[in-house]
């Protein structure tokens, strides 16, 4: 697995269900960040030249390589728009969520 996925978190019922001390499994994600987004990046795979600029500059790391193109993990994309702004061939459009 290249990136963690959201997991079911069961809130402790007994004090002994808590970890000993403030420490927990690395990479445990109890929730997504999708709700933050007002604009969604949509990648036009026909335009994408696979330069990987968006992949490198994404602050959240939600763009991943997929079949010689790139794709987005919408569970964790916050819609900052950096990818669309940096894309040299304008292959990424930011589209308002409620229009989708």
């Amino acid at each position, binding site marked *: 697995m290249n990136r963690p996925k959201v997991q079911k978190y069961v809130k402790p019922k007994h004090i002994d269900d808590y*970890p*000993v*001390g*403030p420490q*927990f*499994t690395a990479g445990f994600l109890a929730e997504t960040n999708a709700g933050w987004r007002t604009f969604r990046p949509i990648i036009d795979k026909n335009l994408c030249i696979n330069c990987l600029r968006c992949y490198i500059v994404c602050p959240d790391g939600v763009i991943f390589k997929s079949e010689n193109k790139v794709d987005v993990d919408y569970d964790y994309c916050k819609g900052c728009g950096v990818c669309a702004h940096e894309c040299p061939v304008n292959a990424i459009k930011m589209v308002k969520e409620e229009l989708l």
Partner: protein
Amino acid sequence: MSKKLFISGDEAVAIGTKLSRPNVISAYPITPQTVTVERLSEMVESGELKAEYMHVESEHSAMSAAMGVSAVGARAFTATSSQGLLYMAEGLHYASGGRYPIVMMNANRSLALPWSIYGDQRDSLSLLDSGWIQVYVEDAQEALDMIIQAYKIAENKDVLTPFMVNLDGFVLTHTYELVEIPEQEKVDKFLPPFQTPNKMSFEEPKNMAFSTTPADNLEYKYQQNRAMLNSIDVINDVDKEFGDKFDRYYGGMVQEYRCDDADVVIFTLGSITGTVRMIVDKLRDEGKKVGLLKIRYMRPFPEKEIIKLAGKVKAIGVVEKDISFGYEGTVYTNVNSALSKLDNAPLSLDFLCGMGGRDVSKSDIYNMFISLFKAVNGEKQKRVQFINMGVETDE
């Protein structure tokens, strides 16, 4: 065969530390702790102690580094005193909240201002709430033994709480005594290597020392408090196991001396205990029913032991080298909190002495007992008494 050496309290701590096989020592020098870190440095240099010595640039970093060491599951030691202890205050709470069982020697010394390098216990007592186990030792032998016990108690899986071994500055740190040195082999059998679930590793990566929202914070604090309370049984068990193996029992949470049928008992902390013991003997020879309770641990607090004893006596005097300005001595406050749980609590007096290195003589102790007897006989005594003031105060 174990051997005996004529050494100071600081040196005894260094040897106790060496025998406990820490992986890393991170410390910053301050009088009167310096001899301990100097000896440890020499042991690392000679190869006698296989540990890394980190020359950190401050006490804050000494504690911060020790937490890093513990967070990867290695055994950490540090030592400080007075201003240095306060400088690491942020780290003290952090280490206990993080459940890192670091062992630290603190040479009890006065706090500035005014500057004073002499002993009193205001440094550690002002950090009573930092979540560290606090033991106060009486002599160099106990200092050595308690470093070894400290690791065993602190690292117990039900405790995982840092541990502060307090020695009175100069009176203990710099006084030479004949000390029996336990054999390494026996110590190794007594103190197994450090194991903890609370660490980062590549087999089981962790995110540590995280933030909580109000939804979980209280549970972590409850857990921390429970661990500290758990340590009471562990302290008593470890004292027994140590005694069985090394022939020296310290009594666990407290040590009673001639308390059996006593009417008047003095409570002590640290090195003053020896002097009080002598006066108890003297008064007993005179037919007076007196006793001594050496409070060994201030956290966790020996409430149960105090209540048990207090139910049988008429008066308690607390001798302590500190004051909480605007109120009374901190030990006294704690003792009275325990006494308040009794229906018929004995009367109690607070004797503040030895601050900034002020002498406390045998006759001072003798007079404390006299004051307690007077109180028992209905003669009014000041509840909080400054012992050995050099001037009139119009009080």
